[in-house]
């Protein structure tokens, strides 16, 4: 098996739904796969103290985030029998209703794909040095807090 290296996960702006469809289509050639699990983060138009979120601007400590993502990936591949795992996170402004996170795991059996996907999402939220700035319609902003 060839050694895995840090892969870029960052994309400028939103993740396009058609890109997600294309990613799924590419897995048709891997006929050892029996189940895929996908998580998508979408920007909510929250209302906070009367102000409406129109988008989130993401910034990251990119080098460190990619190194951390590499560790997460290695841990998850060691723990679950996955055939593959793909992660995409937005940088820059993502408008309300658009996709900002795309996590995609595949395995021969559903349980590994589902558990790996969930664990990956939790670790991304907790461990990647990425910050979201919630932009309000009123030309104002606040820094997002993860729950």
């Amino acid at each position, binding site marked *: 098996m060839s050694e895995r290296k840090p892969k870029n996960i960052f994309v400028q702006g939103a993740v396009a739904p058609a890109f997600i469809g294309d990613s799924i289509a590419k897995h048709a050639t891997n006929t050892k796969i029996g189940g895929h699990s996908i998580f998508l*983060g979408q920007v909510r138009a929250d209302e906070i103290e009367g102000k409406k979120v129109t988008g989130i601007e*993401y*910034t*990251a*400590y990119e*080098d*460190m*985030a990619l*190194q951390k993502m590499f560790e997460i990936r290695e841990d998850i591949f060691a723990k679950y029998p996955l055939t593959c795992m793909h992660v995409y*996170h937005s940088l820059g402004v993502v408008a309300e209703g658009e996709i*900002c*996170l795309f996590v995609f795991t595949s395995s021969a059996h559903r349980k590994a794909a589902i558990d790996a996907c969930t664990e990956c*999402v939790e670790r*991304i*939220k*907790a*461990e*990647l*040095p*990425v*910050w*979201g*700035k919630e932009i309000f319609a009123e030309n104002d902003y606040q*820094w*997002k*807090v*993860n729950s």
Partner: protein
Amino acid sequence: MKILVFGQLTDIIGQHEYVMESIDEMKVSSLRQQLLNNYPALLGKKYLIAVNKKMADDNAKIEATDEIALLPPFSGG
């Protein structure tokens, strides 16, 4: 000493990257104190410090050539 600033801390420090005059070697805890002296608005703000892209605790030592980053709570995804 090159210091990278992220997230809400950029609102306090006003820039994403700056160079701080450094004593040859110091502990992370001393850096925190020096930052607080320079930017009193940091008082009470939670942030971690990474040294060369690894999390560092208060006792870790920093050299002038290290890449330092100030990391407020993450909010990706």
